[in-house]
């Protein structure tokens, strides 16, 4: 299949999943389940990555600031803006593309191969609405929350590392955090988070839903979905930066 066939089928999948749920209660239950799967189950990795990334950013920025004419509080400014603009939304979503994306693709792929999707269809259920839409909505709800959490934890990790390594005291770090804060940057960071959330939920859902073959193909489509999601995240990163900044 060529690129345009995939694109057409992907767009059709998105169109066909918009339909009235057969039973709101079960769809709500599925949405909550997905929020838990995508959000809560990714929490540990997000917390660990954010704290260490913040710490490393502080240490490396300090290492590169060799001139005494730049105040040390600028390290906090750089850590803050880096996390809001780039590190939290992009890096965390690349990680989530691996964690969440592979899970979505393999779950749907397994359901396809074991005829569970056919069984749902035979019951008269719109399988795209029931299986894919809750995952997308859940990702749109929880991924931005995870990104905000990553921003907070990243900055906190940087602050902690600055203090523990003796690079800069917390009072100077806090002072830097208050300098030249641009609220628009938060809007920009969240715009990225919503865009990436859509990518990391729909691309794996597409590859999982349409998998053909057996266990080997589930693994392959899962890997393919993660790679394509990561490429699309980086592409969207550039496009959003060019448009919004």
């Amino acid at each position, binding site marked *: 299949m060529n690129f345009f066939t995939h694109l057409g089928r992907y767009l059709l999948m998105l169109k066909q999943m918009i339909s009235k749920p057969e039973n709101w209660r079960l769809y709500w239950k599925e949405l909550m389940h997905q929020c838990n799967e995508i959000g809560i189950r990714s929490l540990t990795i997000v917390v660990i990555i954010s704290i260490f990334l913040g710490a490393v950013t502080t240490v490396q920025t300090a290492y590169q600031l060799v001139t005494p004419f730049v105040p040390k509080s600028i390290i906090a400014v750089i850590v803050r803006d880096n996390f809001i603009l780039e590190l939290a939304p992009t890096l965390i979503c690349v990680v989530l593309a691996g964690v969440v994306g592979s899970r979505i693709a393999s779950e749907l792929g397994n359901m396809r191969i074991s005829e569970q999707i056919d*069984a749902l269809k*035979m*019951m*008269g259920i719109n399988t795209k609405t029931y299986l894919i839409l809750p995952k997308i909505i859940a990702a749109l709800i929880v991924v931005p929350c995870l990104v905000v959490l990553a921003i907070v934890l990243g900055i906190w990790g940087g602050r902690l590392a600055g203090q523990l390594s003796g690079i800069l005291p917390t009072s100077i770090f806090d002072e830097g955090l208050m300098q030249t804060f641009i609220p628009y940057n938060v809007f920009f960071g969240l715009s990225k988070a919503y865009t990436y959330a859509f990518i990391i939920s729909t691309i794996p859902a597409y590859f999982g839903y349409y998998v053909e073959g057996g266990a080997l193909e589930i693994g392959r489509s899962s890997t393919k979905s993660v790679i394509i999601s990561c490429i699309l995240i980086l592409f969207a990163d550039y496009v959003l930066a060019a448009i919004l900044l």
Partner: protein
Amino acid sequence: MIELKNIKKSFGDKSVIKDVSVQFEATKCNLIIGASGSGKTVLMKCIVGLFEPDGGEILYDGNNFTHMHEEKRKTLRQQIGMLFQGSALFDSMTVLENVIFPLDMFAKMNAKQKTDRAMEVLERVNLTGAEKKYPAEISGGMKKRVGIARAIVLNPKYLFCDEPNSGLDPKTSLVIDKLIKEITHEYNMTTIINTHDMNSVMEIGEKIIFMHQGAKEWEGSNNDIIFSKNTELNNFIFASDFLKDAKDMRMLELKGKIDNQRNMDELLR
């Protein structure tokens, strides 16, 4: 009654179903038999709408399923139960939750009524006590029975079974066959079964369609099979010497030349 008119289906250049026309009889066990690759599963998937046929019409009690709007199809599908080859149970749900799922989705019942109904069908398929187990914790035969319970929980008009005996031992196969035959008559359903299990053919096949290389080669009842002169059918059904002998015995029995039980007892003495 389910009627197929000139059904055709191809995958690429390969024609899998070639102009098949057939009437499946209402409230009976209809069997589609044939060797692996003969097109029986594709035909069944065309009938239930999992594959779209390239040509022809499928009529459910006169309603044209082929040209039906998706919303109407969804409504019709609530009257269809299907048992899949691999049972297709939802891994993350218990046996009871699997059976309750269609009720949760479509039935206007309270929680107690749903549980009672699910327990009733689980009891019917002899699975009382297994309701809290997950699909991974039960045997293949039990999975098939859960699949049957889930298929009949909404009281469907039509039941489709795709190779219900695949992967089962002969004794369990008999149990599943007997169960399908009983519930077909109990629930007044039109049942269509895909199989290549010879025991099913002889025991429960009230109407049998034999598929060969994508075309309908023969149709008739289980008794007609014994007297059929169709070479392809005979080569398929009575493939071994043992089965050929069994066929001869059954033929003599049906012709009234021997009273099977009495004569056999005498011969074996």
